[in-house]
């Protein structure tokens, strides 16, 4: 049985203008110690997915359907008190902007100790020792001093290390990291990512890494899930997705990587912009931007406009695309339009 099993998750926001469907029919699973990447442009619903796992979406948002099972326990219907016992303890989170994540008026020590005390019966002295130990694990210099410092006295990279240490405090089973390096200096990004990877491997912690950076995903994760307009459109082993993406959108993302461009040429862009979640196009949400959604005469294919594509299996990947379905049905051994089969190194 998988450690985390998300099935048909449906999240909506009840806004004044009407309901907005932020996540539709999301399913994925995560094994113990596995590292999963969730990729997509901003607004695709990645962060909503991350927050929904711990039922942390704020008020106008709510879970409209589906299930999230962690270690055999259903999280969507769990009482707040029981959920609180899982948050930070079994599943912990790392937020995007370390400058905003730590409470400015509480010392680092307080913010670490309170987390331990919330989940274990433990003396303050023991809690401080555990905190010190974790700070050492994330390579914070002179950790004793840091415990009594306040967030504003530390740099962004240092704060993100502390946040990672907080995430590891109770030896969780899963860490959900929501764009953990986006807000940091480019020079520090790689350091933090390497640290996160090292710690997850060492402690056998499963990682859900939310990012828009396919490069990071290819270095860190074993499996990848690509999201577009609130839906999963492709998922499978990271290596296969990077080397042999099936979905035209994933191919577009890979082609847009700087490594894929010829030096001196413009980067390859996907034409158009992602639709807002409030008005996603009918059928396959990607069809207005998709070069394969036209038939030979240049008319849009009826399927793409009218029908939400279901998943087809191609190799080890699951892809939601009408064209891929057609190809797979025509020739089960062919693996789709291998436009991007050069891969990324």
């Amino acid at each position, binding site marked *: 049985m998988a450690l985390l099993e998300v099935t048909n998750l449906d999240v909506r926001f009840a806004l004044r203008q009407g309901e907005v469907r932020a996540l539709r029919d999301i399913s994925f699973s995560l094994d113990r110690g596995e590292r999963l990447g969730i990729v997509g442009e901003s607004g695709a619903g990645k962060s909503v997915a991350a927050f929904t796992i711990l039922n*942390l979406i704020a008020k106008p948002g709510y879970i409209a359907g589906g299930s999230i099972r962690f270690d055999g326990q259903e999280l969507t219907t769990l009482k707040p008190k029981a959920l*609180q016992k899982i*948050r*930070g303890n079994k599943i912990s989170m790392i937020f995007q*902007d370390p400058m*905003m994540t730590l*409470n400015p*008026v509480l010392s680092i020590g307080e913010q670490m100790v309170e987390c331990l005390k*919330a989940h274990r019966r433990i003396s303050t002295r023991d809690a401080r020792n555990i905190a010190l130990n974790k700070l050492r694990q994330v390579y914070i210099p002179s950790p004793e001093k840091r415990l009594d410092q*306040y967030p504003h006295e530390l740099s962004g990279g240092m704060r993100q290390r502390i946040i990672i240490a907080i995430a590891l405090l109770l030896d969780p089973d899963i860490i959900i990291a929501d764009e953990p390096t986006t807000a940091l200096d480019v020079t520090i990004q790689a350091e933090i990512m390497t640290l996160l990877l090292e710690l997850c491997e060492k402690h056998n912690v499963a990682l859900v890494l939310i990012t828009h950076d396919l490069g990071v995903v290819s270095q860190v994760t074993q499996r990848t899930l690509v999201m577009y307009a609130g839906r999963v459109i492709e998922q499978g082993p990271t290596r296969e997705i990077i080397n042999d993406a099936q979905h035209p959108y994933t191919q577009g993302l890979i082609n847009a990587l700087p490594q894929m461009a010829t030096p001196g040429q413009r980067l390859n862009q996907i034409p158009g912009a992602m639709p807002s979640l409030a008005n996603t196009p009918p059928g396959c949400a990607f069809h207005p931007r998709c070069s394969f959604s036209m038939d030979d005469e240049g008319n849009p294919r009826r399927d793409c406009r009218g029908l939400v594509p279901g998943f087809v299996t191609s190799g080890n990947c699951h892809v939601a695309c009408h064209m891929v379905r057609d190809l797979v049905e025509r020739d089960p051994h062919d693996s789709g339009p291998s436009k991007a089969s050069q891969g990324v190194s």
Partner: protein
Amino acid sequence: MIAFLIKRLFHALLVMFIISVISFAIQDNLGDPIQQMVGQSVPESERATLREELGLNDPFLVQYLRFAKNALQFDFGYSYFFNEPTTEVILRHLPATLELVAAATFLIVTLSVPIGVYSAIKPRSPLSRLFMGVSIVGISIPVFLTAIVLIQIFSIGISITPFPEDIGWGSWLNGLLSTEGGMPAYGRGNDLTHVFGTWYTNYASWDSLVYLVLPAISLASIMLPLFIRLIRAEMLEVLQSDYVKFAKAKGISMRRIYFLHALKNTMLPVITVGGVQIGTLVAFTILTETVFQWPGMGLMFLDAIERSDIPLIITYLMVVGLIFVITNTLVDLIYGLVNPTVKLTGKPA
């Protein structure tokens, strides 16, 4: 810390200097002290001698320096009306005002924090809406009008009889709408307990404590809605912040999140505003004390204006200025202690 205190001290001296110049300018320009002292019947020649003796013909700067020298020794001259040193008159009236302000502050602090926090945590609950509605009405009622309404209801009493007495519930409903009155609404009462010096207190017995009730509620009524609205607005903003979400993700109890993580951040701007509002509170004591004939500094000040008792007016201004400077320094100090990003070195880190 020491640098902070020195800077604050310098600031305080500057403010006191400005107030003293203004006070002195008032003294120099207002009315004719000779007339106040000796009345109409004294001949002009005698007045001129008196004027010369008092140094009223000296140049402005000389007079100011004399004033400042005396002021530093807390000597502001004699009150025309009471015919005793103004500082003694002030000291006699100060305790009444301080006790009134203390009671009002107690009401403001104990009510505004829980109500503000509650209506931020549950912004859509009917109770929160009620609090917000009442507080905007509260802001719109001038403090003296609140006082008058309280006097009418609780001191004089009202009797409204819209229901006929002979139907079953009639007299009961009429009784519900009417009030007995009888709350004291005039002065401090006669059962004051002596503490020391000029300080007689209302707090020592129930009989004298009831005299505080209506004035304290009136004085609190103007600040309470302001603070409720401020605390709610700040708390709502803080609750949206990433660090509150992160605290939730850590599995901390909601109680700790609300009352430690969120409230501590909420209180920072509230403390700053609170410091400014202390001045307003003192201003409102003048109105409250006038309505209730509460024998404090505010009433004394207003009487002094009526009587053109200029030395007393000036002493009042200087004392109030001193109170502002002290409280503002205290508020800054508290702010610095609560907010770790402010190092008490004089400038924010």
